[in-house]
């Protein structure tokens, strides 16, 4: 089920206007796609955060524009707390779209019990599906993953109707034995880094000269 998002038209653009909007509790947005005109919009921050919290990728726009849209991109502030801008793309219910969906590991790997570490090489994969069938997460079952084993993209079970766009030969999850470094001090090497463009003999003299 898609969330609805109330949007208002944004007559002004630019950094300063966007900052003013954000101070008033809005988030600048842009709607594009399907060869139609690009529209500058704004939405209430709480409403957008609710959509993000629900994990919705498809939103029904209300207000200034009435259409279905895919949340293509989100820009965040430095701390990843407040959304700064959102990109929306027009979508039809019937068309197939490409989206990036996060992977979620399920089960316990036998390799983990044997002392290995399960590494997520890919945290998300790109799939092609219809807007109605976009999964929130793709579950990857690691119940048969032994030490030295790997799960490739083509091994991942996708929802009905979905097709992987990411190369099937790419490794998504692997199980390896991690070699942990000992915490003791390593043997002493060079106490100072090599100076680029200076010969070994000159270093001592130059250092003395500088000091």
């Amino acid at each position, binding site marked *: 089920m898609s969330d609805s998002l109330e949007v208002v038209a944004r007559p002004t653009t630019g950094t300063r206007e966007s900052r003013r909007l954000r101070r008033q509790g809005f988030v600048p947005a842009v709607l594009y796609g399907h060869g139609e005109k690009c529209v500058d919009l704004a939405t209430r921050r709480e409403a957008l955060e609710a959509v*993000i919290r629900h*994990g919705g*990728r498809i939103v029904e726009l209300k207000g200034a524009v009435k259409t279905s849209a895919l*949340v293509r991109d*989100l820009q*965040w502030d*430095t*701390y*990843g707390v407040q959304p700064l801008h959102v990109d929306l793309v027009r979508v039809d219910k019937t068309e197939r779209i490409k989206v990036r969906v*996060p992977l979620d590991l399920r089960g316990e790997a036998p390799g983990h019990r044997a*002392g290995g*570490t*399960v*590494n*997520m090489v890919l*945290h*998300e994969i790109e799939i092609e599906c219809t807007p109605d069938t976009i999964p929130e997460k793709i579950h990857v079952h690691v119940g048969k993953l032994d030490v030295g084993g790997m799960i490739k993209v083509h091994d991942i079970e996708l929802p009905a109707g979905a097709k992987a766009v990411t190369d099937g030969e790419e490794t998504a999850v692997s199980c390896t034995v*991690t070699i*942990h*470094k000992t*915490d003791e*001090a*390593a*043997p*002493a*090497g060079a106490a*100072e*880094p*090599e*100076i*680029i*463009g200076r010969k070994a003999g000159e270093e001592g003299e130059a*250092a003395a000269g*500088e*000091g």
Partner: protein
Amino acid sequence: MALMPKRVKHRKSQRGRIRGDASRGNRVVFGDFGLQAEQPGWLAAATIEAGRIAASQYLRNEGRLYVRVFPHKSITSIPLETRMGKGKGEPEFWAAVIKPGTVLYEIGGVSEEAARVCLARLAHKMPIRVRFVKRRVM
């Protein structure tokens, strides 16, 4: 042996000012959870190493720790009871310049509870205020 660059162009650097927030290296990229700086500062190579050891002692052989910062800056000091002048001091240690928002460490392959405990232990070693962050899906 603490972290330091292999090759540098100059042995000594000017102090500089830490202005603004981190616009790069401010997201959890490799692991699932991270420790994000909330204040600017220098992170000495010894401190980075202390954090790594604190985390690896807690994690044992579980999960994986990623250190996201490297000490590129040499910090000099002049000896005590030295008269003014006679030029800049000698490099004492190497430090990473941290802007607010920088992700310092990341952890993957462990539960959130374990990651929180581990990063809390690590946070005690840090000279700046830090916070726990998760990987963002969108």
